[in-house]
């Protein structure tokens, strides 16, 4: 009984802190939601959970969208979102504004979380050969049939989501990050460590690979 009380206390205190913060905002007090990312992260480094809450609220939706696309499963994306923001909290004091803005830094943490978790899962699952991934169609066998013509939106989305998961991570990442419209190629370069020119080339290769996979799924060209 004592243990339960001890463990739930910090959460209760934190939640109470959030309520107080909302009250302060309503009464014209300090509003973390209006602060810059840099200011919020600096406050997080000092252990300020209100600042962390504001930063989380600001980024949870776009980061979750990216993680959902990278994971392909909602449950996994939820788990990764928690892990990514826990890492943001832990590493808040290590961010150097001279080396880049907070936004790409947060996405870099999210992408690295996805990479770590995926490699961990891959280590526990049987090996899939390159023939099974559809990448053998990258070299010109994709045909000229445009991607996703004559399909309704929902079916298009399903086919692309399925095809996306047959791509290697480095191709999937650039497509997901750029199509999220949250980061430019230059910012994705900061996130992934690959130069912008390479990323554009990867994007193009990913489109060709996706075209091939979608055609295969549609039964075209068999």
């Amino acid at each position, binding site marked *: 009984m004592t243990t339960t009380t001890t463990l739930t206390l*910090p*959460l209760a205190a934190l939640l109470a802190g959030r309520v107080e913060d909302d009250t302060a905002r309503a009464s014209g007090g300090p509003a973390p939601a209006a602060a810059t990312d840099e200011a919020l992260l600096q406050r997080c480094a000092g*252990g300020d959970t209100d600042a962390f809450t504001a930063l989380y609220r600001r980024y949870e939706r776009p980061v979750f969208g990216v993680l959902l696309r990278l994971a392909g499963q909602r449950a996994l994306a939820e788990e990764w979102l928690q892990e990514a923001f826990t890492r943001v909290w832990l590493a808040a004091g290590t961010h150097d504004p001279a080396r880049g803005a907070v936004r790409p830094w947060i996405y870099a943490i999210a992408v690295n979380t996805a990479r770590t978790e995926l490699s961990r899962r891959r280590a526990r699952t049987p090996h899939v050969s390159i023939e099974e991934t559809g990448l053998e169609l990258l070299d010109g066998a994709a045909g000229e049939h445009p991607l996703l013509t004559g399909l309704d939106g929902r079916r298009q*989305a399903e086919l692309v989501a399925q095809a996306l998961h047959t791509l290697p991570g480095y191709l999937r990442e650039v497509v997901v990050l750029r199509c999220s419209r949250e980061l430019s190629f230059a910012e994705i370069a900061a996130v992934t460590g690959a130069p912008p020119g390479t990323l554009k080339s990867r994007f193009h290769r990913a489109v060709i690979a996706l075209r091939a996979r979608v055609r295969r799924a549609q039964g075209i060209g068999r």
Partner: protein
Amino acid sequence: MKHPSPSVLLELQFDEAPAADREALAAHVRQCPSCAADLDEVRRLESALAVGAEEAPPADGLERVLARVALVQPIHARRAEWARAAVPGGAALLTGWWAVRAVADRLAAAGVVPGPFAGSLIGDLLGLSVSVFAVVCVGALVTLAVAPVLILESHGRS
């Protein structure tokens, strides 16, 4: 105009093409079925990925993350705590050293430490031993005094 490369078409699609080139590129795409098809393919991909992108994150996500972060301090904050602890820690060490020397001097003055060892390392070690013994005795007395209260409080909570 020559066909733009796939990278340039991507820049056009994602509004990253240089402003000076944008109009000429757009005009080319309007007239070139091949480039228009390539660009359309990227648009379709983007639209397909946008389906479901509005899916909401978990409603209790923040609470779950806060529960996790409550157990750990940011690296920077942990460093700051060490820095804060350094000042009182240093002061405590200096005070301790002063107390040891004072005890050692008194022991020498009282004749407990033989003359040749007074003011030497052996005298200081003797002073340190007496000081540590005194601290342990005081600590034990405080524990004995406080323990019943803690035990009673613990029983009361459970």
